[in-house]
Each structure stands twice: as C-alpha cells, then as structure tokens.
C-alpha cells in the first residue's frame, strides 16, 4: 500500500467512526474513546521506541502535561485551542529533555524516562500548592461527550497518519537504522541525535494532545490522577503485544486490550488484574513478535 492509499484508508476509517455518537450508547462511546486514546498513544510510542529500541516510559509525563494544560487553560481558552497547546507543551518538554538524555541507552533511558513523570508530577504539585494554593482543579462546563469523542478521534487519526508518514520518510529510515546499529547509521550520515529528538517530540505531541483532550472528562484534575504511571506502562504493553515494529499491530492491540480490560473488569472485578497479568505473560512468552507476527505465521502456514 502506498502512503497516499494508507492515508486515505485512515481518513475513511475516521469518518466511519465519527458516526458512532449517533449510533452507540454512552457506555459504548466511552469505551470507544478509551480504545482511540490507546491507539493514539501506542502507535506514536511504537513510532519512536519500536523503531529505535529506546524504551520510553515517559508517556505518562507527556499525557499529564497535556492534561494540566487543560486544567490551567480550559475556561479561558476554547477547547479546540487547549488540545493542540497541550500537545505543543509536551513536545517542547520532550525536545528539551530529549536533548539531555537521548544519549543514554537501555535500562538507563527507561528508568530516566520513568523518573520524568514523577519529576513533573512533583514539580506541578509543589507549584500548585505554593503559588495557586490548591491541590487540584475543578473543570466546569465540560464539552459534551460527543465533542470529546470527536476530538479524541481526530487526534488519534492524526497520530496514526503521522506515524504512517514518518515510516515512509527519511526520518523513519533513520530511526530504523538507529534501532539496528546506531553507530553504523551515524557513519552513513545520519544525525542520530536530531532524528531521535524529533521523533521523541512528535510522539510527545500526540500524547500531550490526547491528555489535553481526555482531561475534560474528569471534573477534578490533580497531579496524582493525571500523571498515572499505568498509562505509560499500558501504552508500552499494548504496543509490544501488538508488535511495536508495525503500524497496525499497536492499533489492533489497543482495541483488544481496552475491550478485554473492560470485559474482565465487569465480569471478574476482583480477579481481572490477575487474569490480565497471566495473559500478558503468555503473550510475551509465546508471541514475542506481537499480534502482528500472527499474520506472517498464518501466511507461512497457508503457503
């Protein structure tokens, strides 16, 4: 499939999904919104971390920054402006921090990106207490759930389209080269530092925009809830289970994972985390290439 066809398919898919608020119940709509959110988070995570093998746990930090842009700006600024602003704030933060830590690899990088979320959370808690004399913020006049859904749909579709475009571009090739052998890529003329910072910031933009878009669903925003490390972990798991080297893998996995979580939570409210954990272990052990690798296996079996 050429990039043009792929972008067309993404647009068509998004248009079809835009009809959902008229067709589905509130419960289904909120479930669909969760799916879309994780699609956006997982594809952009895979775009950077899947290609380069730099395991980033910073998704929660970017997501939380976006949510806080909403907490501060919503009310005085229109929703349509707050969402891209949240993305830009997260991207700027990622570019700044990335310039400082993207020379680290492996466990060091993973631990540091995890620490970022904690750092930002505590920084915001402190500044809110000291300067605004508050521990959390109440959002009033939240937009209707259909508006939130369309916004998240738009951001998620843009995220998938951006990832498709990056994969087809020189940046995508550079990222793949970095993942395969960073020094070799450098000796073939790739400015690996610039490529990594760019991709890290693009991924952060979409995580931030999604955080900003979703935050209006919560009437009360506090650091502990929006800088939730589980959002980061779930994003990593979804992308890896789906197949972080592919575009479709994390998308399918985001839907499966979100539905499964919801189903288990409703059916087995006490045991659902146990079941989920066992499923994860089994998948990682027996399907290391992710769900996307099933397609390849199936093709080989048929051939």
């Amino acid at each position, binding site marked *: 499939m050429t990039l043009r066809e792929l972008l067309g398919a993404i647009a068509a898919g998004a248009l079809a999904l835009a009809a959902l608020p008229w067709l589905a119940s509130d419960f289904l709509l909120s479930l669909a919104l969760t799916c879309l959110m994780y699609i956006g988070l997982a594809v952009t995570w895979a775009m950077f971390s899947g290609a380069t093998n730099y395991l980033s746990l910073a998704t929660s930090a970017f997501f939380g920054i976006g949510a806080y842009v909403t907490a501060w700006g919503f009310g005085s600024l229109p929703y349509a402006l707050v969402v891209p602003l949240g993305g830009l704030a997260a991207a700027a933060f990622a570019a700044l921090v990335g310039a400082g830590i993207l020379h680290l690899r492996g466990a060091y990088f993973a631990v540091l990106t995890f620490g970022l979320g904690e750092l930002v959370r505590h920084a915001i808690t402190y500044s809110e207490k000291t300067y605004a004399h508050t521990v959390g913020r109440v959002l009033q006049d939240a937009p209707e759930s259909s508006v939130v859904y369309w916004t998240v749909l738009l951001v998620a579709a843009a995220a998938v389209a951006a990832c498709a475009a990056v994969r087809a571009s*020189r940046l995508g090739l550079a990222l*793949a080269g970095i993942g*395969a052998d960073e020094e070799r*890529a*450098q000796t*073939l*003329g790739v*400015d690996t530092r610039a490529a990594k910072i760019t991709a890290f910031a693009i991924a952060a933009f979409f995580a931030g925009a999604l955080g900003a878009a979703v935050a209006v669903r919560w009437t009360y925003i506090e650091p502990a809830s929006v800088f939730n490390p589980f959002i980061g972990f779930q994003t990593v798991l979804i992308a890896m289970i789906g197949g972080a080297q592919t575009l479709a893998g994390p998308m399918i996995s985001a839907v499966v994972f979100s539905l499964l979580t919801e189903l288990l939570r409703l059916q087995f409210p006490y045991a659902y985390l146990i079941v989920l954990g066992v499923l994860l272990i089994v998948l990682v052990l027996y399907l290391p290439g992710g769900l996307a690798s099933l397609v390849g296996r199936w093709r080989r079996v048929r051939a």
Partner: protein
Amino acid sequence: MPEPVLCARGIEVRFGGLVAVDGVDLDACAGEFVGVIGPNGAGKTTFFHTLSGVIVPTAGKLMVGGDDLTGCAPHAFARHGVARTFQMPRVFRDMSAEANVRFGLEFAGRARRHAHEAFDDARAILAFLGLEDSAALPAGGLTPARQRLLEIGMALGARPRVLLLDEVAAGLTHAEVDATAQLIRRVRDELGLAVIWIEHAVRVLMNHVDRVAVLHQGRKIADGDPRAVARDAAVVEAYLGEEGEPVKRAA
C-alpha cells in the same frame, strides 16, 4: 602535488594512561590508494576510528576537503564524504541488501553525485560487487564474505570522496582477496576516490596500493612506496618475530 582530500595531523588518542595512537600524520589525495599496515596492537583500528569521527582524538587535527572536522560527530564526516567499512561487518541485518546500500544514498550521499553515474543507484552498486542476486534478501542472512562486500556497498552508497576499508580481506581466500582488491582499484579509477586500506596481513596489501604507511606501537614508522618501505630497517624490525619476514617476500 594535488591538494589532499583527507589530511590528518598529529593525531593522538589516549585511553587513560595508554597512548594508542601517538602523533600520526596521514594524507590521502583523490585517486590515491593508500595502505596502512602494522602488527597487532599498533593502533591501526583506533587511528581509523578517528578518521571517521567514531573516536574523537585527544590531540591533532583532521581536515576533509579543506574543512576542519576535528571533534565533529561521525555523521559530519560521512556528509563530507568519508565512508568506511567495519572490521566485523555491521550491516543492518533485518533490512534487505538493497536497502542497506540505499541507506547511505539517502543520508551521507544525498548532497553529492558520483563522478560515474552508475554508482548513484543501489542496484547498480550491488551488481558491481556481484551481489545483485542477493538484493532482496535480508542482509543478516548473507554469508560473512558477502556481508563484507555489502559493507563496501554501503560505503559506496554514501557517495564517498574518501573510502576507508578496515581489514576487508580478513578471512578471505587469496583468490577472493585479489578479486576484492581489483574491485576496489576499479572503483578508485572510475570515481577518483581516495582509498585508505588497513590490513593486518601485509602481503595482501603491498601488491595493490600506491603508497603504504606503517604503524608500530601507535607511531608511524614509515610512509612511502611499498617497495621502499618493505626494505626499511625499522619496518622489518617491527615485523620480525611476528610473521618472519613477510615484507621481503612481498616485494
């Protein structure tokens, strides 16, 4: 005397107290085929790393095409036309052989054209190296000898002005080495490249290069016509006890 395209002056590399490369000068002009030899541990590979920006020398100066690149990152060297191979092939294993060659064309070689049009195409480069039947195969599945050739192809994809070859003959049979050397001479002639070839096995190199530099314990002890260098007392001394007197046989 033409202007050298690569010019290294007083290159020194220290690892803590150890001086691996000690004040080495080396020039290479367009169209020149230069060999660098030396016994094990002479600092050849470390010196080579500095020429491609992989290691920043602790002292000295590196000029490429008249620009001072001392202290620059490897990608700056690559973009100025310095392309290299690695001793152990470092191909992108999951990419096809053709994509491996195209990688350099997309990045380091983007702003330049080769003197010879045929080398501006990944397929043509593979065909030149005799790898056209492997174009679509993942590079990691090729035999070590073919990966070594592909390394040269990746470097040629970067549209180099200076080609650095790090022991490309290691592990090859005599016939294969001669064939590889012939290939390199052809590229050099058709593209007017400066080629610097490091080799541990002296005999291989002496028959093919225009000029040879000898490193010993981090220092350059000789630099000149291969025949003259082979008779140099210091060079014979450096190699005694290592390979007998291979230099004499080569000359």
